[in-house]
């Protein structure tokens, strides 16, 4: 599904990623862990096409397509989704309007029939129930004044609405208390399936107790320093990242 080969990238001319190789097969959930500043979020933004990140070497293939050649919206309709670490507040745009625009943009690009207001409401209500998202939250402006937990639940709702093939979750656990974390993880787990892959970026092992990964990678100083099974996360929890930061 996703093949990252020898990826090098800079931000403001400063090298951040220094040769990343990563393959994710359909249905797999991979976790990327690492200390702050190791390049985790940079990887997430490069996968989704944010400006300001320059790929200097390497390639990213998503279902055989050259991802780096595509605009952010093209990647989204192709099935790449990023749950933001810091979801953006957009005052003045009702959440429903935003979700409907997004759902229909994706449906249109995929050659599916667009949903009308009523059809969309029915569609979205099925998704909101499980995530504990109220109608009131749908009416409010996108993320404006949302609590940390509400913002993250809203990210998972968008993911449920857009039904991506590859979901990248960037520090989805940050700023969540344990109850909110469980709700969000349940929402994510409900979306796991044989055709959907996930890349879960996190600093702490805690999230991986709820979203159990198939593979865990340690990102340190712009490279994948170690890979292993889910037990690697526990090991990191115990020993910390010192080994990886000191080594380089």
């Amino acid at each position, binding site marked *: 599904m996703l093949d990252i080969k020898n990826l090098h990238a800079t931000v403001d001319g400063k090298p951040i990623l220094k040769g990343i190789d990563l393959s994710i097969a359909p249905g797999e959930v991979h976790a990327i862990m690492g200390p702050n500043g190791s390049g985790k979020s940079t990887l997430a933004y490069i996968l989704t096409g944010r400006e300001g990140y320059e790929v200097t070497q390497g390639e990213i293939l998503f279902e055989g397509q050259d991802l780096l050649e595509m605009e952010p919206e093209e990647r989204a309709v192709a099935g790449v989704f990023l749950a933001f670490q810091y979801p953006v507040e957009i005052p003045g745009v009702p959440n429903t309007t935003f979700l409907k*625009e997004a759902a229909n943009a994706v449906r249109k690009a995929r050659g599916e029939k667009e949903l009308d207001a009523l059809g969309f409401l029915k569609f979205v209500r099925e998704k909101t129930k499980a995530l504990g998202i109220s109608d009131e939250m749908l009416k409010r402006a996108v993320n404006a004044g949302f609590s940390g937990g509400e913002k993250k639940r809203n990210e998972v709702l968008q993911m449920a609405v857009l039904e991506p093939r590859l979901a990248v979750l960037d520090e989805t656990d940050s700023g969540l208390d344990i109850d909110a974390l469980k709700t969000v993880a349940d929402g994510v787990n409900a979306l796991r399936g044989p055709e959907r892959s996930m890349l879960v970026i996190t600093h702490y092992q805690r999230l991986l107790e709820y979203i159990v990964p198939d593979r865990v990678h340690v990102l340190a100083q712009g490279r994948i320093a170690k890979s292993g099974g889910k037990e690697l996360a526990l090991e990191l929890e115990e020993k910390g990242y010192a080994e990886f930061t000191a080594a380089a």
Partner: protein
Amino acid sequence: MAGIMTDTTALQPYLAQHTALQAQGQAAAWLGGLRDRGMQRLAEKGLPTPRVEAWKYTNLRPLLKHDFAAPTEEDGLRIDRIPSLQPAAETTHRLVFVNGRFRSELSHLGSLPEGVTIGSLAALLREAPQRIEPHLGRLGSLDEHPMVALNTALMEDGFVLLLDDGVVLAEPIDVVFIAATGERALAFHPRNLMVLGRDSQATVLEHHAGQGEQATLSNLATEAWIGAGARLWHYRKQEELRSAFHLSSTQLLLARDASYDSFVLSTGARLSRNEVKAELTGEGAECHLNGAYLMRGEQHCDTTTVVEHKVPHTTCREMFRGVLDDSARAVFQGRIVVEPGAQKTDGHQLCQTLILSDRAEIDAKPELEIYADDVKCSHGATAGELDDAALFYLRSRGIPEARARHILIESFLGEAVQKIAAEGLCPALLSSVANWLAQTHDETHGEAA
């Protein structure tokens, strides 16, 4: 006409028109005197130039390139379309002015309660001039406002609303001004007067539009007296043609506990100025000046406000939001004056502009003049581009870039519209915003010679 004209030459046509108007000899002596004073002041001061502080950022020189004629009844005889902020079927009272003249065959009035006069200034000056003598031309200084002086020198017609004490007008009054040209460029000077008695209430919807190819100058002056406890809601949409100059000056006087709520949406004219001066002369008076402007091409839009707090416990709120594309230019001059002793004044002003092009420009000049020590006053002006993070967020959800930009612009203005405009008008104002966005950059770029 090429080259720079001197002020006196520029004034010749207006002087001739003034002389002709006065020679008709039908006017009451006080009215003739008022027009003469207007002409005198204009002759002394000349048309505003950027040397005058208040006109530093808005240069009227492009006016001099046109030979504006005074409209006759032949001009704009046929009107294609009457634009309005509300659907025609829902309009109870509508007054239509074409090139500044009242057109009764295009207008209609529903049933009105006792104590309401709605009509044209020309008719009132003819039939009952004594009813407006105490108020007409009494607000604002002609010295400070050369364009109002010009308006005064040539005033003939306009919109009049007189409400007796306690009269509440439930239905809004739709006032439509159409600049309509055929073969020649036209200048006209509508004069509006609103006098609201104690505890009376009214809503006025003003719409400015145009048809035809030639340049026009709409030089409007409005005086509004808002009596104790009275409320006036005043909504305006200015969508004149790109060949138009639109200069509007509103002078307000608010008595004790009076309130004025306004919203101006400007999308039209090649050059426009919306100037408001409010005097808060009674405790508890409240003044809300709001608006939004959307400009592109070579358009120039000036918003100038002066709010004078003359007594304690008065409030003003100003919120303007604008979007500038291409080489458009906007000016925001907002002055809040708190006179000595006007304690507990509460004045806030905010102008926020979204700049979509490197060539667009905003000049913002907020001014606070405070001569009292127990007041709450603030002002702010911001100018910025679309938020990159928000744009990326929308695109990352599959929304194409162009659409994402529209959503963000609409939300920037929509927020202002919903926060500050009357609820019933929001759909009309928002659809104007959507229409503006749907046009491409250069579709309406053309300007008359």
